[in-house]
Each structure stands twice: as structure tokens, then as C-alpha cells.
């Protein structure tokens, strides 16, 4: 089996901790030798996934947690963000994901949606994204150290 280091964080699903997770991911990524740009991409993507847990996962419960797993491979970083909250209807969401021009054909700014860029950005900034939402939501995001290893993969995330 391919060797990797695994690192895990469990934090309360509160806005307060998103910045802490961002510092941790930038530490892991910089130790791995990712470029400045790639580190910034990772920070945004992981923050988006954690922000979704904070904002949507535990709407009906009083509180919950977010679990972040980092699998550090020789050539790539895999980050898993998961919660044990509400699942969501991925097929419905899927149609709302995309940059504004493709999605909304907005000519009138007043019709512009104010949210819904999170999953789109995750997908735009990472090399591979998988979402599983059977029990809670698990977002698995991969970024390669060497960008030439990345296949053509710029579509909407696939559901596994």
C-alpha cells in the first residue's frame, strides 16, 4: 500500500475554529512543500468545507463537531472534512453549483444569489473532490504537489 502520514483534528462546529483549522492546513501544506498559491487554495477550500459544517450541518441540533483528516502522501495531500449532521440532497445542490455566468445568466444584479459559492470554490481550487452524504457529509479533497500530475478535472464534484 502507498505510504502516508495521517493527521486528524476534531473541533467544535463553531465559526471560531475555522481560522485555527486554516493555520493547521497551511502548516501541513508548507511542510509538504506546496507553493504559496497552492497553500492559499488549500486554505480556502478547507475553510469552505468547514464553514459548511458550521453553517448547515447541525441546524436541528444544539451542537456538533467537525472532523478533519489529513492524509499526507509523497505526491499529494488528501483532506477529509466530515460531520455527523444533516445530509443534503446533492442532486439538488449540484445544479446550483457554478460560477455566476454559467449558472444564473444574471443580467440583473438583484437576482444574484448571495451564497452557494462554497462547493464551487472547493471544486475550482482542488484537483479532485468527492462528496459522500449518506451519514452526515464527508467532503474529500485532493491536491497534488506537482500540478502536472493532475488530470483534466474541472467539473462539478462527483458523488460517491
Amino acid at each position, binding site marked *: 500500500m502507498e505510504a502516508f502520514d495521517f493527521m486528524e483534528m476534531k473541533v467544535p462546529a463553531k465559526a471560531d475554529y475555522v481560522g485555527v483549522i486554516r493555520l493547521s492546513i497551511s502548516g501541513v501544506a508548507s511542510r509538504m512543500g506546496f507553493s504559496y498559491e497552492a497553500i492559499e487554495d488549500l486554505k480556502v477550500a478547507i*475553510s469552505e468545507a468547514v464553514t459548511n459544517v458550521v453553517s448547515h450541518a447541525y441546524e436541528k441540533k444544539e451542537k456538533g463537531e467537525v472532523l478533519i483528516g489529513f492524509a499526507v502522501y509523497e505526491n499529494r495531500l488528501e483532506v477529509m472534512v466530515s460531520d455527523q449532521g444533516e445530509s443534503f440532497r446533492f442532486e439538488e445542490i449540484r445544479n446550483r453549483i457554478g460560477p455566476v455566468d454559467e449558472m444564473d445568466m444574471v443580467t440583473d444584479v*438583484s437576482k*444574484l444569489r448571495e451564497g452557494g459559492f462554497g462547493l464551487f470554490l472547493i471544486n475550482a481550487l482542488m484537483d479532485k473532490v468527492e462528496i459522500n452524504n449518506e451519514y452526515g457529509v464527508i467532503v474529500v479533497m485532493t491536491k497534488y504537489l506537482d500540478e502536472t500530475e493532475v488530470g483534466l478535472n474541472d467539473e462539478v464534484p462527483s458523488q460517491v
Partner: protein
Amino acid sequence: MNLAVGIEEAQNHYTVKVSGEIDVYTAPELKDKLLPLTEVHGNDIQVDLKDITYMDSTGLGVFISAYKSAKEHESSMELIHAKDRVSRLFKVTGLDEIMNVRFDDNNKEGQ
């Protein structure tokens, strides 16, 4: 990890300087300071993005609602000095085509 929002006023012209990180934790503060300026008729608001060190979709969300609110109240809002990472977010989402964003980098000068 923190955000600072400074507001300079000259008649109905406002310059809002945003510095630090905009994320789900700090976005509410930005919204609380920016939105009221857009809810007055005839205001002219410039938001200076130069010193933003981190921003994600929560920041986009705040700027979108401020922009919409400004339109509704016949005020104007312009985002200035978008650069590097911040400009990347506006471009990748296509929001630069819809909102008034001025970029400080070469790719898309004066959008």
C-alpha cells in the same frame, strides 16, 4: 485571524478599508459595518480590499448583499484594489463581470 474595518466619511462619500481575514467568523462584523452605509439613498461607497490577507465565499456573500442593497437604495458601491488571492476569487466566480471591481493586478486592469 482577525478583521479590522475602518470607515472614512466625506459628505456622502465613504471609504471602507477592510484589513485582515474575512471568513465565517469575521464576516458578520464586516456585514454589520458595511450594510448600513448601503441602506441610505445616494451614498457613494468605495471598499478598499488592499489589505485583505484572506477571504473566502463568506466575504463574497457580504459584498454581494452590500452591492444589492446599494442598488436598491440608489447608492453606489465599488470594490477597489482587489489583488492576488482576492482578485482570483472574484474572477473564478465570475462576480467581477457583474459587480464593480477594480483590480490592482495586470490580468484584468480596471474592470
